[in-house]
């Protein structure tokens, strides 16, 4: 569905939308407390897609959950659409924060987590980041801040797909050793296979049990997951495959 949406829009970021499907599905289908009929319900758990270019993934899940109709997906990136190229909370029900400029979401998540502490509310805040996004200095300002305030209601997720726009993260600007960096900033660090639901659910559960520390889940994923010619190909970070190849893929998936 993500792919069909992107083909309809003729532009967008397929690679980073496909790599994190299982993680976002796990959140919306079993981890998070939320209500599609009340997108602004004050008690809801929050999900911030800091890597906003994966908007098609978020929109597909929100539509499936009933935040808006599946028909809307066809208008992605088109003029006058509810569905902007990057998330816009004023236009799209269920979108928590405007994103598109990487590096900002974790700090915003801190703000929402602090507000929960002030108000004695028990909602949790989830922030999905890209691995290339780890290169933004603000991520580490936020990392320091969240552990200072012992934000155990905050959970970061890093989509560790190894690729950014110009190439491989470890060639463009190495981010390893990533887990030890987060540990050094005093975070609870959990590593999972980003396609293993059992591990993913266990990790979210462990994060919610953790006291006095924020948790980061480093999810090992594959950019362009599920589409053989897109996997591990930086080219498909910001390029949409043609309609024909997508139709073939979708047929294969459906027959599986």
């Amino acid at each position, binding site marked *: 569905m993500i792919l069909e949406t992107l083909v309809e829009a003729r532009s967008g970021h397929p690679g980073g939308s496909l790599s994190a499907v299982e993680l976002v599905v796990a959140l919306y289908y079993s981890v998070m407390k939320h209500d599609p009929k009340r997108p602004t319900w004050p008690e809801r758990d929050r999900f911030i897609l800091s890597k906003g270019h994966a908007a098609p993934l978020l929109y597909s899940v929100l539509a499936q959950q009933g935040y808006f109709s599946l028909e809307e997906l066809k208008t992605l990136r088109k*003029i006058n659409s509810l569905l*902007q190229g*990057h998330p816009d909370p004023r236009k799209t029900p269920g979108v928590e924060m405007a994103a598109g*400029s*990487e590096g900002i979401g974790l700090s915003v998540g801190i703000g929402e987590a602090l507000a929960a502490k002030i108000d004695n509310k028990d909602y949790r805040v989830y922030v999905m980041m890209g691995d290339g996004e780890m*290169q933004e200095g603000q991520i580490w300002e936020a990392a320091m801040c969240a552990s200072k305030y012992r934000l155990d209601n905050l959970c970061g997720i890093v989509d560790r797909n190894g690729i950014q726009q*110009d190439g491989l993260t470890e060639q*463009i*600007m190495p981010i390893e050793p990533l887990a030890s960096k987060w540990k050094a900033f005093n975070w609870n660090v959990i590593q999972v296979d980003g396609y293993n639901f059992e591990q993913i659910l266990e990790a979210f559960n462990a994060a919610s049990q953790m006291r006095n520390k924020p948790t980061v889940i480093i999810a090992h994923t594959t950019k362009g997951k599920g589409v053989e010619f897109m996997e591990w190909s930086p080219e498909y970070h910001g390029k949409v495959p043609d309609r024909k190849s997508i139709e073939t893929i979708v047929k294969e998936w459906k027959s599986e």
Partner: protein
Amino acid sequence: MAQVLSPEEIGDILDKPKKGSMREAFGETLVRLGSELKDIVVVGADTTGSIKTSLFGAKYPERFFNVGIAESNLVSVAAGLGIAGKIPFASTYAVFAPGKCVDQIRNAIAYPEVNMKLVASHAGISVGPDGASHQELEDIATMRAIPNMHVVIPSDPNSTSRLVEILARDKGPYYMRIARPDCPFIYSAAQASSIRKGGSMTVRDGSDATIIACGLLVYEALIAARKLATENSLNVRVIDMLSIKPIDEMAIIKAASATGGIVTAEEHNVIGGLGGAVAEIVVENYPVLMRRIGTQDTFGESGESGELMIKYGLTASNISAKILELKNLDRK
């Protein structure tokens, strides 16, 4: 100033437009200058393929640095290279630089007057489907408000090349903004070579009113001027304001006194951009009626770039409508 293009040339540009890419012109010019000016260094931030500075990286890998997704680092590293005697070109999308690092640009570059060139691509609403988050409409205002900063805006691929050359050879902090879509050529390389530091180009002469435009709107201004000539018998001057700071004050004052009314057109918020800069000169020297075309203090949205230009009024027809509005007020 005599007009740069002959009526036949303008006709050719409008009837048989030849298109090219500002980004490619930027990347290719860096490669060409790189062999002569060994001090040119290029810094990128994970958008080097898109902005074509990767061309320079392929040719001169030892003078090319990719700092990753880290724009504050991008411009600050470039500042250090400039202080150490290099000619640094830093570039990424305009929403991220200057967007994400005005502090570093102000304090580490403009204040100490460092020789550093920031070239931002994907400026304006013509970015298209990525939407408002990626459509920088405030950069002219922020950059021109910073002391010591030069601000230049090419209108086609050849003026892009020419301005890159001026930036490389002049000392000091510069901001240049280019657009994402391919665009029609306005100048031949020879015509573009007469672009001077701080100068404008009068691409079409006229005496009934003046359009002062920058970037992609210069072409729209030429279309509008022709329409006004054929449909309304108005002879309208068109000035391409390639340098917003310093700005060509004489060209503005002369246009005000000789033609009486001015419409500005830019792919930027009407607050603080080209329109504001022109108005500042006009009111202090030769007040005439003006209209400013730009986005009306609003964010953009997703859509095809052409559709957005129409929806937000950044078109030839809006320019000609505003000229007619001025002429009608004139008569009253």
